[in-house]
């Protein structure tokens, strides 16, 4: 397996959606190719860091304000369609 072949399979490998035979080939490649090992490891960390980052959390006060506005508009819409 070449490095570019490894790279094509990287997402499926990280998502654990490769079949066993390809997974074994990928792990064999990782065993001896340091560059692909590093790319694989740091790509995995990239995903984990974003997933755990709590980026763009919705603050409670804004959350309440938005929900009040949404529900108000939904009630208006319902009143119109019921009329």
């Amino acid at each position, binding site marked *: 397996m070449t490095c570019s072949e490894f*790279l094509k399979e990287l997402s499926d490998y990280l998502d654990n959606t490769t079949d066993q035979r390809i997974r074994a080939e990928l792990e064999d490649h990782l065993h001896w190719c340091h560059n692909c090992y*590093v790319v694989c*490891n*740091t790509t995995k*960390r990239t995903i984990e*860091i*974003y997933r755990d980052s709590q980026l763009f*959390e919705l603050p409670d006060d804004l959350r309440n304000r938005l*929900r009040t506005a949404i529900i108000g508009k939904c009630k208006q*819409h319902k009143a119109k369609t019921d009329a």
Partner: protein
Amino acid sequence: MGAIESKVSEPVSDESVLVNAARNGDVGAFEQLVRRYDRNVFRIAQHITQNREDAEDVVQDAFLKAFQNLGQFQGQSKFYTWLVRIAVNEALMRLRRRRPERTVSLDEDVKTEEDSIPREVADWSPNPEQLYSQAELKDILSKTIQGLSPGFRTVFVLCDVEALSTEETAEALNLSIPAVKSRLLRARLQLRERLNKYFKRRNGDSKQ
């Protein structure tokens, strides 16, 4: 090397009951759906628009549209996937308004494969998150993902932040599964490359 663990989905057993009630005009039932998904919709909207005001508008308009159009929701897909589709369309529309000079489309693409070939291969510090304060880290992550094209960052956010499956992401974005997979790989590799400069192991970092 282990695979990425996916987030556990919330139980959706009562969801069809809530959706049916909301479809029949029960605003209280719809409010429960809003409470269940408003954080996700806000996060997706903020990631796509990169603008707080736009994200707030997207949340309001997406939920209102969902309420108004629940009659068209067939129940073949999950309510959340259907809602995400509405929210993504609203977010892209706002992005286009703000950047009329640039094409903003999920089909937009995709120079060449070269944009995703790793150029810098450096290992990262053992705990890159600890190199920065929480606020600095959020700033780095936010700026870095902002540099991706809207199509790439949308796929990355749905798959890797919101933990939608490839199939659900394809459905929400009206893309083929191979197109989602291709964008996801390239988005992940581009982010990795860009984060390198912040997280790579520096002289003096201890080896593990």
